[in-house]
């Protein structure tokens, strides 16, 4: 038996937030992407309710362009922990004519996810969606509350946010509204990696260096794959790479890396001079890309 527990303040805060979600809402859901942040969330949720099971399902909005390694990992995790997983597909939203597939050089299904997500929220009447967004990721995210109230259209009203005082969370909402909840708001990328390391949490293999067919564009490394638009002259080559963030293939760039273990990865992150979002193609669209997407219901 351990003698004295000295808390890790960030972990303790996250557990507190997750318990508040379970207590304050009727139908919460954890948005699970298969990326390291949502995997960390799952561990935190386990800790929050142990020895009981996590009292809410996971929802994966699948763009259909995910790395197969991520999907395999997702299914294994769900199986091992006995979690309930709901999957909704962007392809279905496209087939229903609700959104239109982008075409051409920078086409991606990333922003199409929003519609599929909002439909799923309506279908299951979710009143709270737990997400793994962190404030250090991006300048608009730095302004986000832990409990972020959204209207019927999922919109974020950035100038009219509820003040959050001390650790008191106000999740009271009207019918039709829902709340996006961000338990790891105060974590940095390095915090997440160090946590994965100390907790010995399994993550998908694409986070470690591996050989992959890629091509270079705009100083970034893109996955060469049927889902990713590529021009004739953009030459495919095999490189040792890993991913720092895992969205779908069309919006996640790789980095050259030799890091094969968690220690190596943590070491590389510490030394890194490029931010994690620097490898997100979706953020490069404009200076306010994130803020604009959030206003219409994106995470």
């Amino acid at each position, binding site marked *: *038996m*351990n*003698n*004295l*527990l*000295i*808390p*890790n*303040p*960030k*972990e*303790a805060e996250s*557990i*507190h937030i997750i*318990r*508040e979600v*379970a*207590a304050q809402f009727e139908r919460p859901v954890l948005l699970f992407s298969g990326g390291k942040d949502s995997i960390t969330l799952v561990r935190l949720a*386990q*800790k*929050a*309710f*142990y*020895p*009981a*099971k996590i009292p809410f399902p996971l929802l994966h909005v699948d763009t259909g362009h995910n790395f197969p390694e991520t999907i395999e990992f997702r299914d294994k995790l769900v199986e091992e922990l006995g979690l309930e997983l709901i999957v909704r597909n962007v392809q279905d939203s496209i087939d229903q004519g609700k959104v239109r597939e982008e075409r051409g050089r920078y086409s991606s299904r990333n922003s199409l996810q929003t519609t599929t997500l909002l439909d799923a929220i309506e279908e299951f009447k979710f009143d709270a969606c737990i997400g793994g967004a962190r*404030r*250090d990721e*991006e*300048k*608009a995210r*730095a*302004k986000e509350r832990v409990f972020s109230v959204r209207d019927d259209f999922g919109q974020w009203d*950035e*100038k009219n*946010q*509820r*003040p959050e*005082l*001390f*650790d*008191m969370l106000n999740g*009271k*909402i*009207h019918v039709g509204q829902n709340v996006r909840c961000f338990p790891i708001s*105060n974590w*940095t990328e*390095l*915090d997440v990696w*160090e*946590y994965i*390391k100390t907790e010995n949490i399994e993550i998908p293999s694409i986070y470690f260096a591996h050989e992959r067919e890629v091509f270079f564009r705009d100083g970034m490394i893109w996955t060469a794959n049927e889902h990713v638009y590529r021009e004739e002259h953009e030459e495919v080559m095999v490189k040792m790479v890993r991913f720092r963030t895992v969205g779908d293939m069309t919006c996640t760039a790789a980095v050259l890396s030799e890091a094969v273990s968690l220690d190596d990865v943590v070491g590389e992150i510490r030394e*890194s*001079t*490029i*931010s994690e979002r*620097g490898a997100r193609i979706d953020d490069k669209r404009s*200076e*306010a890309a994130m*803020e604009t997407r959030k206003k219409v219901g994106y995470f």
Partner: protein
Amino acid sequence: MSENRKLIKIATAGSVDDGKSTLIGRLLYDTKSLTTDKIEAIERSSKQRGYDYLDFSLATDGLVAEREQGITIDVAHIYFNTEKTNFIVADTPGHVEYTRNMVTGASTSQVAIILIDARKGVIEQTYRHFFIANLLRISHVVVAINKMDLVDYDEEVYLKIKADFDALVAKSDFTEDQITFIPVSALKGENIARKSEKMPWYVGNTLLDHLEVLEPADLEPSSVARFPVQYVIRPKTEAWHDFRGFSGMLYGGNLKVGDEVTLLPSLNTSTIKSIHYFDQEIQEAAPGSSIAVTLATEVDLSRGDMLVKSGELPRSDKRLTATICQVNNKPLRIGGKYILQHGVNRVMAKVDQIESRIHTDFTGMEEAVQLKLNDIGRVHFRLSKPIHFDSYHSNKSNGSFILIDEAEYDTVSVGFIE
């Protein structure tokens, strides 16, 4: 985190354009916390705006409206670390209209950096923010006298402002050792992370060095243990058939197996049988732990109830008096009914009497019938059920609450119990 770096939480304060965001941007830059893509973005934006210097405020002013107007509107949370320390900074707005955002940012911080423009000296907004720091009982205040480059790094200017500020300190609850003065230029990086050669007359630490020597333990006053029940864990599985764990965050003091506890509101007593942190059983937990406890006897205890050590009971009352800061456009009115959230517990509250509006320049108070946005006042409440509280003075977490509008559900006020 695993590296056992200490965690220090800071809020900025001070009037509009005093250079708060610039100072934080500078701290990020000088500690190499800005990645090249972010620096490039700042360079691009600065150039677009026609500046011949790097506008570091762009590192934290993330909203389109903020960048357009060159001001901070809402709190930005910024993270950086040095070898020894993890910092969380709440960069708050200086504009009077957004004072509530300053209160919000400061509520989670242990340290406040109050900036003063060396050309302007101590002005109304300085009073107000120092008053709020005092009200919130922030443990440590750094007064950064900024834009020293615009006053020729003149020691006289610094001393004059320091003397003016000392006069304020004398009127507050702060003691001298809780306040530190540093002359800086956020824009040029003087005395931020690098000791300034332009101000040889200043012998103290740079801002960064000063922040690094602070110890979290000194910044979190200890108190008695308070354990509000957040969520009852009932696995109902074969292995854990009879398990009933009361989960929550522990505040104020340690709790250990075998402790005699009193349950509120029932006043029943019991003993801590076990303490759980995930799959580990532990003997004792320190404040700030998110844990689950089981009790030796079958008891009735649910969310919103509280568990304390017998002999350390809080006050229980249906009436209370608090200092209120109004954080919503809707004014607080006599007779108004609200949902009062005290930690994780909610009751209904009615405003019995608004005794006064308090001048935020330490000059006293005046009569008032309502409290408008950003007003601070002394208010008497009547509650639907008793709550179990301490004074904010003796226990921050158990001495504060928020008021939620009954119709809109917005958070409209924050209260500090007397």
